[in-house]
């Protein structure tokens, strides 16, 4: 068991860690020597790229981006209040001809984190926006050339949405970690651009009509 924990942690920390052995072996050969420009340069390059390693993942259900979506992303910021995520979603065909895939780019703001105990914490508000693109020949990003300019004044392929939500977070004690540092359950209520412009001039389209619910698990790796 212990071996697996070490192994998993090594893998998850793969890129930031890979600079360390190199430095160690150098230190063994030439003790106390100041790193050369080349060494500092490669070290800098490694640590810069290491920051791009995704440090969280997610499993996301519904929410207008797919029946189920798998996400990977980054949490960052001085108070760890920002998150950026990329999700790949699956849309079953239902009454249409094909199953479809979607891709989502999502930005989230998490202003508060309230600890309930050493393990449990509540994030009472998450808010943000996302852009979703759906693949398939029925959805154009640029109006086909046969149409006069601005024949349809919108882009079927691209939806922009805003959302708010909440999360409950469980911090896994370090001795029990296998893959993840923490797991959060969340839900989000969103609405998209076309729903908003449908609801605004119409009393008959109510708030409940334009809301979309999503729920899922956020998995923090490190």
């Amino acid at each position, binding site marked *: 068991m212990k071996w697996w924990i070490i192994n998993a942690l090594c893998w998850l920390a793969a890129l930031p860690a890979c600079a360390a052995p190199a430095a160690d072996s150098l230190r063994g050969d030439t003790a106390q020597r100041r790193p050369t420009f080349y060494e500092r340069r490669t070290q800098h390059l490694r640590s810069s790229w290491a920051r791009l390693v995704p440090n969280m993942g997610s499993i996301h259900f*519904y*929410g*207008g*981006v*797919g*029946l189920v979506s798998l996400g990977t992303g980054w949490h960052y910021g001085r108070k760890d209040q920002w998150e950026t995520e990329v999700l790949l*979603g699956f*849309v*079953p*065909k*239902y*009454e*249409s*001809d094909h199953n*479809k895939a*979607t891709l989502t780019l999502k930005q989230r703001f998490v202003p508060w984190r*309230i600890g*309930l105990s050493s393990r449990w914490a*509540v994030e*009472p508000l998450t808010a943000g926006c996302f852009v*979703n693109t*759906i693949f398939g020949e*029925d*959805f154009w990003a640029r109006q*086909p050339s*046969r*149409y*006069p300019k601005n024949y*349809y004044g*919108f882009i*079927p392929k691209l*939806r922009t949405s805003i959302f708010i939500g*909440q999360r*409950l977070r469980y911090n896994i004690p370090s001795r029990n970690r296998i893959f993840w540092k923490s797991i959060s359950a969340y*839900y989000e*209520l969103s609405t*998209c651009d*076309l*729903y908003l*412009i*449908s609801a605004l*001039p*119409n*009393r*008959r*389209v109510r708030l*409940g*009509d*334009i*809301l*979309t*619910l999503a729920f899922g698990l956020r998995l923090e790796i490190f």
Partner: protein
Amino acid sequence: MENLFPISVFSAALLLTGCDVLEVHPYDAHVEGERHINARAVERIEAACAGRDSVRFAVVSDTQRWYDETAAAVAHINAHADVDFVIHCGDLTDFGLTREFEWMRRELERLEPPYVCLIGNHDCLGTGGDVFRTMFGDPNFSFDAGDTHFVCLNTNAFEYDYSVAVPDFGFLRDDLEALGPDTRRTVVAMHAMPFSDQFNNNVAEVFQEKIRTYPGLQFCLCGHQHTTTQFEPFDDGVVYYECGSAAKRQYLVFTLTADGGLKYEVVDY
């Protein structure tokens, strides 16, 4: 602050059970509720009008994203129009989104007379064509109201880049062949009229010749250009009546009388 979370989870659960918030995608074509609306309406119309030699019906069109106006039209038709049925000449949606169809259906379902819907060019966007087919049925269909035959056609050829049989002459041929012997009059309804940007204008004249072979072609119905007007595109005595969009707050009422006469009214609501 600690108490907030259970409360909001509870309200989210309420929402979940309360309405259709679990959406896969705005274009998911996941249709819930009423389906095959045209087929059931046709059954009601044919049963109610069987054996009659007069018919009275209303026409609405281009109700996309005008839900309040549509609701007003529905209420007015229910209260004042006294019609056998209602024809919607297409463009129920602006973007072809699945929820738009559901919202528009919610308004139209309040109509007391049976109603049939034609497909508009906006209804073809994204997966809209699939949703239309599921919710309403085949975009080309016909029915008889007493001695009058109604032909409803998809004429949005431009949406398919002219690669699909629109208007479908095969459908017209089969429909003409299947025509009952009692048919005295015919009305042809479509969304986009000949010579409009959506129509396959290469066959506009051929189309007109074909529909003139129907017994007693009375007139044609259309929408698309959002104004209530009438015109005679082929100078052959066949009038096209166009119904304005819901924003114009008008619908049309036609009465085909037993003596072969026609009464045409534009109703403001």
